[in-house]
């Protein structure tokens, strides 16, 4: 509601227009054409209004709608997302007041979207062009990088030393530091294939999937909870996390990986992994107590459109939610064409993961349970029904009108759209029997208690508990229509669209074939097939760039979910295309891609700098050196656990909750029941429960994303809260105590050897002479300090399982040394 606050006469003066002289063609039509016609022309006809049609124009001018909308006296104010200037409003007002004369044959020209030549030629939409082999080059990746470097008279760095390289590769591929034994073995191997063997060993390690799966989970906005106020747990969603880890470990071809996540149920109906995979589409945040189901559904569809566009297509679709993309050739229509592939999905949180004989056995057990308990359950239903009805009647008015209508329509008469609304709305007014038990009195209450006791005992004996996935499915084989939405609002319906791809690549409707024998539309399968077509110019480029980013910190396209014109341009397009083409040629093998990248000299070079190169390429875009970077919070935590000897390597299963720092208010909806078994708490970070309203503080300090939306690349900050975590967090201190205990319990080490042992465990190398001196000096002064405190009867922190014959002050000082070691930059960096 923004009424003009200045008198109209004043405005007209300001606009330089004398009253009565407003010309439609000169003054008004340009405003309508530039500000209104994109939504209100024959093409989109938002709200049924087509300003290119004279009748429509006369109607809204004559009845005052036009003026009220542009001033905001009727909401929403137009144009959506940008108010007209006072002068423009004054012109319209004056034109309307002077009779709304239309002085041209046509009203305003319809603004049919046209792609420019530059947009059509934009490199990302062109087929991947595999560069010709560079003759005489051992390694094509290096040849393509060297071509860019030599153009700037730059040279790549010499190789990194072996220990640095081993630490780099091990942290990179597994998220863990190398063990002392692995370091020994690599140093002892003089063969030219020594590093190649290391890479193959690491790629075969199950920890590889835990590390690279975590990167994918960032993209998938994976979380174990719904988000919003209640932030309920999704009890079985962890199977998706395990599926991702396994898929990386199995080197599942990326095209298959994509297909399973978009349309696993439609593409591989008998395959249980594929059913879990479709959980990718289940990771949207969900406001479960939202009373407007239309809004709730639209928010989910928005999330899916933006996520799929960014993750698989490398396009920022979100811009086109309200209008044609201002810079990239994405039409608003295309946004909703992409959205339409998902128009019929709904959550399926009880997808039973059984097949064949197991499934049959489960079904017959279930039928048996059903038969044994039906009478009891029916009676319980009848007992609580009066109260359940009261509750329904009380809550029903909260719902939007459309939701109420959907729920009140008999199920077999609901439209597909109403089915979806009712499916989402019903849980809000459906409560368990227990909810009403307090309202029952006397005999009824006694009977209720008797029945629930019976049922409980029968459930325990007969109710089967199959493994269950949380995923999505199509709600039958007929999808509700999809409309272009004004301003992305579910209420502002424009023209209907069919599923389709980016118009610039394929302007027609997608060809959809419903899979035989399945109650589904086949829409998602059509999208998955399009995405994984080897000729699709987007998919392979986007993925190889993500893998590159994982190894070098920055992708060849730095904005790794935005390959459009507003994003970053590739620093080396031939290299990107070489990798993409080779990726597809190699059957979309991600492991082969890692291998090719890691065996390049570019990956193996040192990270040291030289002034000339810094002057020519300060951001190292052309890769004249290996880019040093800080490891993620998960890697820092796992490394600390590993070197302290505490890391529990157990894989898979429901998320775990390690201890929180004192002072976190983890109550109510933010509750965080800490693992009772400390070994469970000491598992790898990828298994830490991802709670949307409470990011695990240690990860949050180190820039973990909040899982509200897909995260293509993490920020890497240096903030004092990271230092506070390292200095004061109880767990970090405990790991320091454990590392100290681990070293001190190594029999037969003299003080110098102890220092060396700690260095080798933490940093895979012996200390330098200068470091030895610093540490020895420190241990001396710290021992004196601690001895003074012990003499004053103060509490000190000792190594875990400290040898009994050891001096306490020396032990405590050694803890502090270990603490400094795992807080050091070297420990936290991939160098």
């Amino acid at each position: 509601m923004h009424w003009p606050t200045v008198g109209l006469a004043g405005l007209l003066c300001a606009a330089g227009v004398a009253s009565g002289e407003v010309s439609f063609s000169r003054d008004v039509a340009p405003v309508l054409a530039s500000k209104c016609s994109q939504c209100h022309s024959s093409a989109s006809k938002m709200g049924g209004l087509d300003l290119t049609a004279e009748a429509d124009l006369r109607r809204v001018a004559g009845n005052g709608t036009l003026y009220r909308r542009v001033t905001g006296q009727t909401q929403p104010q137009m144009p959506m997302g940008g108010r007209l200037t006072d002068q423009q409003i004054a012109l319209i007002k004056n034109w309307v007041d002077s009779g709304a004369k239309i002085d041209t044959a046509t009203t305003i020209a319809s603004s049919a979207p046209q792609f420019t030549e530059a947009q059509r030629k934009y490199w990302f939409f062109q087929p991947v062009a595999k560069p010709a082999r560079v003759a005489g080059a051992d390694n094509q990746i290096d040849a393509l990088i060297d071509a860019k470097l030599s153009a700037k008279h730059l040279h790549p760095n010499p190789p990194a030393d072996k220990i640095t390289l081993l630490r780099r590769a091990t942290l990179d591929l597994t998220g863990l530091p190398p063990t002392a034994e692995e370091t020994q073995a690599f140093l002892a191997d003089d063969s030219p294939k020594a590093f190649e063997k290391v890479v193959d060993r690491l790629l075969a390690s199950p920890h590889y999937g835990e590390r690279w799966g975590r990167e994918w989970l960032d993209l998938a906005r994976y979380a174990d909870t719904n988000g919003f106020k209640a932030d309920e747990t999704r009890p079985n969603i962890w199977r998706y996390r395990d599926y991702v880890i396994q898929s990386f470990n199995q080197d599942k071809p990326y095209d298959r990986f994509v297909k399973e996540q978009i349309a696993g149920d439609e593409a591989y109906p008998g395959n249980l992994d594929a059913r879990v995979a479709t959980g990718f589409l289940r990771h949207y945040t969900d406001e479960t107590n939202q009373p407007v189901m239309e809004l709730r559904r639209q928010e989910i569809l928005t999330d899916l459109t933006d996520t799929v566009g960014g993750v698989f297509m490398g396009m920022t679709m979100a811009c086109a939610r309200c209008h044609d993309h201002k810079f990239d050739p994405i039409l608003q229509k295309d946004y909703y064409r992409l959205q339409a592939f998902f128009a019929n999905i709904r959550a399926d949180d009880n997808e039973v993961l059984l097949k064949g004989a197991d499934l049959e056995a489960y079904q017959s057990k279930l039928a048996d349970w059903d038969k044994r308990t039906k009478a009891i359950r029916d009676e319980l239903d009848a007992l609580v029904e009066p109260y359940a009805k009261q509750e329904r009647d009380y809550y029903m008015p909260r719902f939007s009108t459309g939701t109420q209508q959907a729920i009140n329509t008999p199920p077999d008469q609901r439209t597909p759209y109403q089915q979806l609304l009712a499916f989402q709305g019903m849980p809000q007014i459906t409560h368990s029997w227990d909810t009403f038990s307090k309202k029952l009195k006397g005999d009824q209450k006694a009977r209720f208690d008797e029945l629930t006791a019976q049922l409980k005992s029968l459930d325990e004996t007969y109710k089967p508990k199959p493994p269950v996935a949380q995923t999505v499915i199509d709600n039958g084989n007929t999808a509700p229509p999809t409309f272009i939405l004004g301003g992305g609002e579910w209420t502002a319906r424009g023209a209907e669209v069919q599923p389709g791809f980016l118009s610039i690549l394929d302007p027609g409707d997608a060809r959809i074939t419903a899979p035989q024998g399945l109650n589904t539309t086949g829409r998602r399968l059509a999208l998955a097939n399009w995405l994984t077509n080897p000729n699709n110019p987007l998919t392979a480029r986007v993925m190889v760039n993500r893998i590159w980013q994982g190894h070098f910190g920055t992708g060849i396209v730095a904005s790794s979910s935005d390959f459009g014109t507003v994003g970053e341009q590739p620093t080396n397009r031939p290299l990107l295309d070489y990798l993409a083409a080779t990726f597809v040629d190699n059957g979309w093998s991600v492991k082969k891609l890692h291998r090719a990248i890691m065996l390049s000299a570019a990956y193996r070079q040192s990270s040291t700098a030289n002034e000339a190169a810094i002057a020519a390429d300060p951001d190292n875009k052309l890769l004249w050196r290996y880019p040093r970077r800080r490891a993620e919070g998960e890697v820092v935590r796992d490394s600390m656990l590993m070197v302290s000897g505490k890391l529990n390597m157990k894989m898979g299963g429901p998320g775990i909750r390690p201890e929180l720092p004192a002072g976190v208010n983890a109550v109510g909806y933010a509750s965080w029941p800490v693992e009772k078994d400390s070994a469970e708490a000491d598992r790898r970070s990828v298994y830490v429960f991802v709670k949307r309203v409470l990011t695990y503080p240690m990860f949050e300090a180190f820039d973990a994303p909040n899982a509200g939306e897909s995260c293509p690349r993490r920020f890497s900050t240096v903030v004092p809260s990271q230092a506070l975590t390292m200095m004061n967090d109880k767990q970090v201190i405990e790991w320091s105590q454990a590392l100290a205990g681990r070293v001190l319990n190594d029999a037969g080490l003299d003080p110098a050897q102890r220092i060396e042992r700690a260095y080798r465990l933490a940093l895979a190398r012996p200390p330098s002479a200068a470091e030895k001196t610093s540490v020895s000096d420190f241990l001396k002064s710290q021992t004196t300090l601690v001895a003074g405190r012990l003499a004053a009867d103060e509490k000190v922190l000792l190594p875990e399982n400290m040898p009994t014959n050891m001096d306490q002050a020396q032990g405590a000082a050694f803890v502090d040394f270990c603490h400094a070691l795992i807080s050091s930059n070297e420990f936290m960096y991939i160098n």
Partner: protein
Amino acid sequence: MLDRLRHHWNVSSRREFFTRAGSGLAGIALTSMLAEAAKSDPLAPKAPHHPPLAKSVIFLFMEGGPSHVDLFDPKPALSKLDGKPIPDSIGKPKQTSRGTANNTLMASKRTWKQYGESGMWVSDWYQNTAAHVDDMTIIRSCWADGLNHVGSVCQMNTGSILAGRPSMGAWVTYGLGTANQNLPSFVVMTDDRDPLGGTNNWSAGFLPAVYQGTQFRRGDSPILDLKPPAGISDAQQKNELGLLRSLNELWARDKQEDSELDARIRSYELAYQMQSSAADAVDLTRESAATKTLYGLDDPSCSVFGANCLMARRLVERGVRFIELYSGSGSGWDAHEHIEQNHGKWCKASDKPIAGLLTDLKQRGLLKDTLVVWGGEFGRTPFNELSDGRDHNPWGFTMWMAGGGAKGGQYVGSTDEIGMRAADRPVHVHDIHASILWMLGLDHMQTTYLHNGRSERPTVLAGEIVKEIWA
């Protein structure tokens, strides 16, 4: 291309952006040491768009929805129509939170008085705060979009009823940088449970996490991991940090060009200083007995919020830019029934502390630079719910502003005769946000951040400044 998008951050240099400066909670200290990096420190002070009226904001958030018709917006007509349905001339709301639109109107049971030279009306529930009306602009015509708490609290903080956007404190920190050396620039304090929606309400949304609010915990350790665990003395910690520094310096010897490593070394020194400075900021033992009494710390019914108000003043003195204090956090003010008891309790809990805060800010000369904002996520209905309560009212409610350039002793806007909808000069949440930003020197149309290819701003797609507040 990129020049067209103001405040755009080049993604490829984003890492360098943060780390060359080695910033974070306390970017300036580092930046001054690294002059080269000053322009790329995300928390370095930035020039405002125009001269600011206020330097800091204290947002007093009465969570759950305080009843404007029982506090700041007296309605004689409501008394006359007590027990009657909503007149047709006004019309029932289409949808309410609890399906209460057919309920009868309910008169306010409060007694009302005019206060100050301006003679502005306030009810007896807020008689201490009322003494400050001559410093207050009372906006009686606020309106918002959401009907339920979690969405509406979220909108009052972020502009959107849907979680995920940056909160105002985050936008302010992004737009202006920090004005202090060793404290967060955006601090949140609660007096009860966590607000509905939790951390979403002070999230940085799609802005980098450095801009998010820091929830100060009650007690002497407001920030997580602020203190070493028992068993480590200060001297011991200091000595260990000395070792860490020398190890880091030895490693960095052949990496001198990498200022991020340098920044990380310094961040430990800063963290060490924060251990004492942050604890000092919340140490109320340094306040005089008279000051404590002023804020009601001697009265158990208001001492929790009073302590938060007093801490807010201490934070303002230390250059914290945006402080949000929740009263009744976790929807305390949500008086669907028994409004007398409910509001009686929360008004008592907040009235004296707010009055004390205004008095104290003024006597210390801080009020002119400190904008104090009072309000909830919405107001309450003039019609009853469950006979002695009121339902949610986002169509018309009251907020007020004092200090920081806000004119005193004036109303902006009004509601209809029963207080149901904004009538004159409706002021939307976006307009409130635009105005707060303006008073801090930021134009909401120019405060933008490129996210998913869109130039996002704090007021989403709307928002206009309400000039009357200060002009």
